[in-house]
């Protein structure tokens, strides 16, 4: 039987989301095909990698994480600039770890001002990520929205317990929201419905289905995302047609496979950088293959590997 190429035509397509302002704005999503299946339908926007900067770093971070940023690691703005100028970052994600009440517990005002300074200083779109503390994020992120009105930031994570305040602030002050749900297709959909019921249009919402690194639940994220993508495309489920993002840098770099030295675990091998870079790059690639539109990553070498794959697969 001779070969003839088979294509999949879907009735639905993923929505888009645009963040950042002016000619720096970036649009993600909009695909009418499963990841990289350009032979099936249009993939108008390449997936994007946003490179992380932290406003405070964990002293336990392995050298492979710290080394590329050694000179700027205590200055998030300089770090962001280095990511852009030296490592070619297309977007920046500011991780507001310092606002965590279990850590430095920095104030919402501090965070809002830092975000303003960051917007001034950088030439690419900005993602702002809270510490993950539900109550504090509600306070900090909504303040950031207010102080930086109209800057069309991407702000998150909004979860079931705090989405009202965060999404309302995004709506009121002209930003986009990250809708985070606990590795479950129905919960992801439910969050989109809840947030859009507040009045935020679907093209201002991006889903974060909870991201597991290799060895730490990557397969759950992977399958949830494939199911979301199929619901959006094949079933034309409008409430599933928000693009997807994955906050994976922090998940990857805390894996023991990345952190343990050869002395501690001889089976893992001496080259910690290689291990760590590939742990992050392969996790990121898996997320892309499952339907991610926006990856949040840390190591420049890992980012480059992933971006090369994106460029070549979509060439």
């Amino acid at each position, binding site marked *: 039987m001779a*070969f003839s190429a*088979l294509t999949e035509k879907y009735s639905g397509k993923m929505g888009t989301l645009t963040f950042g302002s002016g000619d720096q704005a970036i649009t993600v999503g909009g695909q009418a095909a499963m990841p990289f299946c350009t032979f099936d339908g249009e993939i108008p926007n390449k997936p994007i990698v946003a490179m992380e900067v932290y406003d405070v770093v964990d002293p336990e971070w392995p050298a492979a994480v710290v080394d590329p940023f050694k000179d700027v690691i205590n200055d998030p703005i300089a770090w962001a600039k280095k990511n852009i100028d030296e490592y070619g970052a297309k977007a920046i994600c500011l991780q507001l770890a310092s606002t965590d009440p*279990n850590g430095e517990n920095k104030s919402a005002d501090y965070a809002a001002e830092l975000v303003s300074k960051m917007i001034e200083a950088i030439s690419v779109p900005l993602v702002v990520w809270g510490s993950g503390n539900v109550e504090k994020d509600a306070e900090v992120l909504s303040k950031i929205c207010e102080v930086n009105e109209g800057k069309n930031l991407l702000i998150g994570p909004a979860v079931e317990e705090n989405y009202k305040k965060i999404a309302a602030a995004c709506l009121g002050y002209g930003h986009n929201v990250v809708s985070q749900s606990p590795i479950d297709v129905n919960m992801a959909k439910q969050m989109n419905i809840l947030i859009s019921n507040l009045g935020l249009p679907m093209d201002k919402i991006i889903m974060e289905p909870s991201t597991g690194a290799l060895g730490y639940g990557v397969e759950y994220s*992977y399958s949830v995302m494939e199911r979301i993508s199929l619901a959006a495309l094949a079933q034309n489920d409008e409430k599933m047609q928000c693009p997807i993002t994955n906050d994976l840098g922090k998940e990857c770099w805390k894996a023991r496979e990345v952190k343990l030295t050869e002395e501690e675990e001889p089976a893992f091998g001496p080259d910690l950088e290689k291990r760590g870079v590939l*742990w992050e790059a392969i996790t990121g690639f898996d997320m892309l293959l499952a339907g991610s539109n926006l990856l949040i990553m840390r190591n420049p070498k890992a980012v480059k590997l992933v971006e090369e794959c994106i460029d070549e697969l979509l060439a």
Partner: protein
Amino acid sequence: MGLTGIQIFKLLPKTNCKECGSPTCLAFAMALAGGKAELDKCPYVSDEAKATLSEASAPPIRGVVIGTGDKAKKVGEELVFYRHEKTFLNPTAIACLVTDAMDDAEVDAKIDNLNNVQFERVGLTLEADLLAVRCVSGDAGKFEALVKKALGATEKGLIIMADDFAALEAGAKAASGKGALLYAATADNCDQVAALAKETGASVVAKGASIEEVADFTGKIVSGGVKDIVIDAGARDIKSMFYNDNQIRRAALKAKNRDLGFPTIDLVCDMTDDPYKEAMLASLAIAKYGAIVVMSDIDKERMLPLFVQRLNIYTDPQRPMVMDEGIYEINKPGPDSPVIITTNFALTYFIVAAEIEASRVPTWLLIMDVEGMSVLTAWSAGKFVADAMAPFVVKSGIRDKINHNKIIIPGYVAQISGEFQEELGSDWEVVIGTREASDIPAFLKAL
């Protein structure tokens, strides 16, 4: 896969004699289609119908076994595109390349890595599977010597690769009876290579510049008596590799194209010289339908993420990975170290263990068998509850290892603390831990 009930019905005698146990031939046909009956039950079915039915029930992608004995590796037989539909069955085989242009030391080092780089995880040994031995010298004698050396140096299956037929023949004969995979049969030499494979008990890679080209001659190899075929449709870059693996699986599963119903091989070693890039290509093969991936080396730092990725992607989504019940020692705990209890869902274990490890606080981690459920699921299923946990804690023998009486439970089941305390009695003090694993280091340090 398979035929519909109506298609099967057309092949049956239609006498409704009931001897099969079904009231009618049609009912029997429906039962067959649903996998609820065996064809043998009908004594009157013709040989021709039997052949048609068994052909139709063969897996749409053939399973191919490479190597012999304990280390034999099966690839293919996949039935779906997405792992949530049904488990991916036979994990991508990872092969290491050696050539007859390498010196002995290099060959030895690579084979040594192939044999010895392995990791233990969830009770499994993660390791690479095959040795690809390639002739680049064009010298059949030299190549044969390398194949012989390889046979003596590893128990893993061999891929014997030579463009020159004389060299391929020499290598194949040296590995006769070892279940090797011969690389490759092409449109020009497929009859000859099929005969060689048949003679030496080998399987064959059908290699062409495109899927079209390969589809044209796999049938000839089958007619030559070799059904165990693997496809190389010529991809030498990431985009065409993705396209080929995707389209070959579609042809097999959707179009039921028997000429393409075979596993695929991705020669990522020929696509880049950069070891990092090669690992990315291998990770693509693992996720998106490559059955065999040939790499330039099996080094620890690249294999750890790739093996774990492969394990994760090929895990049964319906059956969670589990840890053995028992006491796990983290950061070398002593008598005064804290005790934490959680469930044997492997993901829970890995996340909790990683956080404890990161805290550097020596800790005893008690893992309780709740059939691989997470903490909350196990609690709501009545498995991670006080009257089940207390006997486990007592039986575990943890008390003999410590000089205190505190046991820390996950914050998500704070509600059971009173009852758990009652069940354990005044011997123990139940302490409520954190809800999120990420808060464990701060919690442990503050104890």
